[in-house]
């Protein structure tokens, strides 16, 4: 008996040990192969259906748009070799270069036209369709109602309210059969010939060439996509035009890309193979990185970050985003700007950045983060705009609170601070709770909610003060500022200011870059005077990266591009 048992136990250990010795660590040398942790399974690889950063980080390797963002965050010619912009800055005429799809067929202007119309079609239900609302007629087409094979404008009554009919207890929009939308005529994207694409915009959009590098605006091969709606379900029919080609997609596990031999700029591409892993657990990712199982990782455990940065195993990249608290200005006491300002001044952002978040975050003394170019070449919107208040200006905060009728916080009603489940949000909320209590003598209770519940409460103004974050969609101050217009979908605070709304509308139609930026600076000044939100810090994007990876590029939008990277 004892022998039998010992045998079982010994053999188990032997198997473990034997399998262990088979492990031979492959020497990387200067093999042009890299392993990257994407951090999660991408929701899709279809550019029109992209939902966020993980999808973009796949799509940008396998697709090339009209333009591509370079390492200075500026758009450069890609599939478009040149373009002409009309004097009113509303018509762009792109000339395409000779380039081909991975199946060998040439990329034409018809492919772009097809891809953009497809992304805007209501039945595609693209979440990023709004990145094409700049194109003339784009928003109207995306809002249209399909009836049979045709699209119609939604019917409205004499007052301009949408007409609906009740179907089984639900209100359904009704099409106006007299107003047809024909996307081939009514949407401002037209292939003049195989190599010429004409785009007409709703209004001048100075950052349009940035947008043409965005995943939603990537071309798709019309011949393939129009005949196969499962083209992006796996790698078999996934015809693309970028620097790399997707050869394997094992869900929730990994993706393999190889250099695309048909890419027009293939001589620039040095990497021969990229492997994406989908490790969600940050500590596991770090262990794999330390064990040599990955070279670059998109997630870093925050507690280890300072140590990793010091040892050179992690780098902190700028990230176009602002972490802030929002006030529900429709409820007392936050309808009083003095209260909002007192709360904004009474916190020590520097302490939060250096001892809590520890990822090189910049204390936010304004709303629009660093990293967006201003009108004059080489200038930064933030540097030009300056700051709007001092960090931890406690004396001023106290004075404002007293002026509002709450000297030393006396009589200040109890309120709750809402955030969604996350250790980072919790630590920050606790610190701020304590700062308000110490500096102003006011107390608040913390309320944590699951993501969906939190979003629901936030959207319904069912909160007093809530945590929020905003990541830019494109590199222009507008992506941060236009959300706070009256009743804007992402305003979320109940704040409304007529002058602000006018400035944002004015900026949208101003073509002169200097005047336009001045208008946006004015708008930000109003926002930062009225303070419906309290900026806390500007985000950063830490990345695990070995010293062997050269030319790694991650845009301020958080998009990774491997086109120019190589191993050393």
């Amino acid at each position, binding site marked *: *008996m004892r022998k039998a048992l010992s045998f079982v*136990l010994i053999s188990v250990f032997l198997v473990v040990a034997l399998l262990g010795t088979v492990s031979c660590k492959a020497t990387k040398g200067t093999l042009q192969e890299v392993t990257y942790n994407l951090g999660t399974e991408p929701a899709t690889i279809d550019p029109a259906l992209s939902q966020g950063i993980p999808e973009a980080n796949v799509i940008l390797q396998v697709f090339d748009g009209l333009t591509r963002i370079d390492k200075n965050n500026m758009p450069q010619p890609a599939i478009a070799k040149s373009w002409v912009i009309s004097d009113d800055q509303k018509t762009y005429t792109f000339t395409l270069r000779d380039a081909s799809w991975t199946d060998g067929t040439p990329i034409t202007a018809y492919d772009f036209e097809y891809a953009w119309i497809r992304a805007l079609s209501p039945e595609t239900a693209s979440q990023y369709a709004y990145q094409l609302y700049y194109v003339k007629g784009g928003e109207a087409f*995306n809002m249209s109602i399909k009836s049979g094979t045709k699209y119609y404008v939604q019917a409205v009554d004499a007052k301009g309210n949408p007409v609906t009919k009740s179907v089984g207890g639900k209100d359904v929009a009704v099409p106006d059969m007299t107003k047809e939308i024909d996307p081939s005529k009514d949407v401002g994207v037209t292939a003049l010939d195989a190599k010429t694409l004409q785009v007409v915009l709703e209004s001048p959009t100075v950052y349009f060439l940035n947008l043409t590098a965005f995943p939603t605006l990537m071309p798709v091969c019309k011949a393939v996509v129009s005949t196969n709606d499962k083209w992006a379900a796996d790698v078999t029919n996934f015809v693309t035009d970028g620097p790399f080609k997707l050869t394997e997609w094992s*869900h929730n596990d990994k993706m393999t890309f190889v250099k695309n031999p048909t890419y027009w700029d293939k001589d620039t591409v040095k990497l021969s193979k990229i492997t994406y*892993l989908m490790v969600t*657990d940050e500590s596991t990712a770090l*262990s794999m990185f330390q064990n040599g199982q990955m070279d670059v990782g998109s997630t870093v455990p925050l507690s280890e970050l300072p140590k990793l940065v010091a040892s050179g195993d992690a780098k902190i990249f700028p990230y176009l985003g602002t972490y802030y608290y929002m006030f529900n200005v429709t409820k007392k006491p936050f309808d009083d700007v003095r209260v909002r300002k007192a709360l904004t001044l009474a916190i020590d952002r520097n302490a939060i950045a250096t001892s809590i978040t520890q990822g090189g975050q910049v204390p936010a003394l304004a709303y629009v983060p660093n990293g967006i170019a201003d009108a004059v070449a080489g200038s930064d919107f933030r540097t030009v705009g300056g700051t709007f208040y001092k960090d931890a200006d406690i004396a001023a905060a106290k004075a404002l609170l007293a002026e509002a009728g709450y000297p030393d916080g006396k009589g200040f009603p109890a309120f709750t601070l809402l955030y969604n489940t996350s250790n980072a949000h919790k630590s920050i909320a606790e610190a701020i709770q304590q700062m308000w209590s110490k500096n102003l003598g006011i107390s608040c209770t913390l309320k944590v909610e699951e993501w*969906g519940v939190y979003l629901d409460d936030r959207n319904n103004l069912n909160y007093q003060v809530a945590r929020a974050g905003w990541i830019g969609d494109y590199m222009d101050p507008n992506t941060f500022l236009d959300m706070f217009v009256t009743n804007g979908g992402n305003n979320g605070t109940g704040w409304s200011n007529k002058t602000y709304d006018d400035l944002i509308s004015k900026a949208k139609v101003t073509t002169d870059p200097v005047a336009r930026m001045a208008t946006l600076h004015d708008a930000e000044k109003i926002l930062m005077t009225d303070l419906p939100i309290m900026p806390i810090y500007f985000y950063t994007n830490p990345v695990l990266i070995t010293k062997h990876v050269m030319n790694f590029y991650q845009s301020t939008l958080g998009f990774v591009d491997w086109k120019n990277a190589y191993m050393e």
Partner: protein
Amino acid sequence: MLKFILQRVLSMILVVLIVATATFFMMRLLPSGPFAREKKLPAQIIQNLEARYHLNDPLWKQYVDYIGNLLRGDLGPSFKYTNRTVNNIIDDGFPVSATLGVVAVLLSVAIGIPLGIWGALKQNGWQDNVVMFVALLGVSVPNFIMAVLLMLVFGLWLHLLPVAGWGSIRQIILPAFTLAGYPIAFIARLVRSSMLEVLRQEYITTARAKGLSERLVIFRHALRNILIPVVTVLGPLIAAVFTGSFVVEKIFAIPGLGRYYVTSINDRDYTTILGVTIFYSALLVFMNFLVDLTYAWLDPRIRYVERKVS
């Protein structure tokens, strides 16, 4: 016997339908929906998405459609993973979870039973103390601690095994041992106590008195009897191993089905929540059914026949 099986199959289908119905309506009571984002989507885009997934139909119609499709074996498209269906997700994920689960269950039986017997035979000796200590550790150390510990020792310190990932036999070892930790300990304790009890039975004394070798006494006479409690716990244990793999799958970056159990709820991915829940509940009732059948085979006193009233 056939009638028993038929009855059980019918009640199993009923249970699954009840689970499907309850889940369908309960998840709709959750605040927010599949298209809620911190960056709120424009109203017309939400409208397009709802139309695409038929979420603008009345709820009763959605339910009827869903059950209709379910009976045809179609679990619908995932709301989160645009190009995938829930059937797809289960097809990809379940074999992985099942492989890991089966290896873990085999490990727990192959290690747990001998450990328990060994402990019982050397009752109160040092071997017994070692077994009980290991069992105590296994029962009390949570699997996420075990996972990190194994990773650290075998991956980062000894460099014997990859710390995480999936695809090779070497990558199964650490997660399988993590997952098997609790069952090994549980089975070892169970086997030890029932073995001690069985060894005091008269038929064992008889067997020994007949002059049978100790090996025969243990393997032929005692073992079969201690298997009954083991099989009883094995049903729920297998279920726990299969469904409880969420943490292990996440930590070891394994592309299994377990993680969808939690992530789909966070994403409000309605069809995936339903599909995974229905699939797992079907699996559970089926496992219990198998356990019941195994009893009959192990214990001649249990036979699923109608009692004839004479």
